[in-house]
């Protein structure tokens, strides 16, 4: 009976698996690169801010401006804007490889802001106490600031990963492959509504699983 309700899903099942695989790869690769660079930038944002451990107004200002610029460009436009850059960097502007570059560029400013927020949530008094103990700044960053922000950091990672799934779908429509282009190609262009429907259900499930896993980890490590 399910086969009757969702005929196309069964017919194109193999393409669908492949599309999900592509999305997974895109999210994993751009996610790892994005999280690492976002973490780095977020930390730099916080420690160079006014009253931060390594206060540096010019650097902070530059970083803020660059992040704001990239955050204000809609992703679809960013993909187009970066075509030559992407081609220069990975040799192609289409397919998985071609999608990952704009995905990283698109997500890093967002992640940096999330990480910044998570780090700012750390009670300044704790940093003060560490300073009062004569502990060095670098030790404070790595052994106090980051560990104290862990629950918030995990939540940022989760939010960012979920956004990346969205970006991957958009990247797909401009030639990146993955679940986005699959849903558009079959579900939208060929009116195979069952494919759109199943894709959406799977995405909802996936996002919820990621979110609740993230929440559980965040709760477990916050005391």
């Amino acid at each position, binding site marked *: 009976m399910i086969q009757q309700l969702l005929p196309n899903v069964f017919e194109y099942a193999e393409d669908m698996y492949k599309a999900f695989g592509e999305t997974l790869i895109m999210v994993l690769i751009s996610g790892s690169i994005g999280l690492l660079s976002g973490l780095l930038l977020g930390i730099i944002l916080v420690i160079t801010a006014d009253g931060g451990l390594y206060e540096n107004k010019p650097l902070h200002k530059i970083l803020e401006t660059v992040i704001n610029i990239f955050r204000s460009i809609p992703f679809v436009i960013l993909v187009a804007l970066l075509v030559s850059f992407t081609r220069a960097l990975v040799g192609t502007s289409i397919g998985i490889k071609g999608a990952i570059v704009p995905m990283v560029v698109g997500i890093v400013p967002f992640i940096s802001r999330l990480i910044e927020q998570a780090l700012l949530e750390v*009670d300044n*008094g*704790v940093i*003060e*106490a*560490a*300073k*009062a*103990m*004569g*502990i*060095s700044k670098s*030790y404070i960053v790595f*052994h*106090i600031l980051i*560990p*104290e922000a*862990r629950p918030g950091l995990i939540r940022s990672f989760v939010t960012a990963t979920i956004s990346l799934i969205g970006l991957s779908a958009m990247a797909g429509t401009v030639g990146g492959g993955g679940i986005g282009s699959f849903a558009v190609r079959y579900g939208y262009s060929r009116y195979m509504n069952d494919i759109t429907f199943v894709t959406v259900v799977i995405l909802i499930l996936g996002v919820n699983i990621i979110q609740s896993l993230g929440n559980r980890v965040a709760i477990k*490590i*916050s*005391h």
Partner: protein
Amino acid sequence: MSYIEIRGVTKTFINANKEETQVLKGIDLDIKKGDIYGIIGFSGAGKSTLIRCINGLDKPDSGSIKINGKEVTSLDEKGLMLLREKIGMIFQHFNLLRSKNVYDNIALPLRYKKRSPDAIRDKVDELLRIVGLTEKKKSFPSQLSGGQKQRVAIARSLAAEPAILLSDEATSALDPQTTDSILDLLAVLNQKLGITIILITHQMNVIQRICNKVAIIDDGRIVEKGSTFEVFSHPKQRITKKFLESIFRAPSEKEICELQKENPEDEILHLIFTGNKAKQSVISDVTRSHHVDINILYGSIEYVGDQPIGSLFVTVHGNPFDILSAKKSLQNYSVEIEDLRGDPDDTAAIA
């Protein structure tokens, strides 16, 4: 030369609107080794900034702070870090790491110093015993009461075996009983380990309970300082008396006004008795021999260290000559007398 010598320290903060506030306006203070020195003031008086200047968390604009003869205001980053290892600090909100349990919180400064795991374990266990939290070793700060958190913070501040402990309103977030137990712990540390303690507070009972010296800070200046007993028994400044009202219950201005309206001839006095006089029958002696009536409004005896200080708020009724001679005779008993009656015009205005 005193152990900690503060001379002419000033500090100005500039806020986001470029407005300048001079928080410290020339502070002089001498603290001896082994003192428990209390600095009391209302919020905004500058006491927090002052204590933070001692370990360089704030840098004075001018003036000098010498600890054991060594100038600290000119230290560079490295020098400050070494200095701070020898100065413990505790805070109003404890400032423990939420992500670490009691043991790891106390071990933090030791791990930073790369002590061996054995040495760390021995030291942390010893500190846990001192603050009485051995069985809470594995608990996280969120599972502890305020008093327990402050004990952990105290243990942590002692890990590097400091010679000086700075206490920044450490009991202000605690209930009265917990406050007392934390203060008693500080007193024990002072006696057993010989740690010099500088504490700031806005509560006079904190000063009364453990401080041997006190300085009153108001609007960036030290307005009165001395031994706690001296300041409690012979308060000079208005603000000092204001703080002492939390210790010795005093009639309100309204009460004084009304009393004065009822019996304009009566004198309203605050009498402070010290030493043995606090317990003697001075009042009945004076009443009997000078034919005056002394009516007690409020009275109490408080101890500073083990010395009693008696405080009486009284009205004195009688003919003016008798009152005058009664006051003379009280002074002969070396009772501190303060006339509480305002200027008649003033009181009329208030009434």
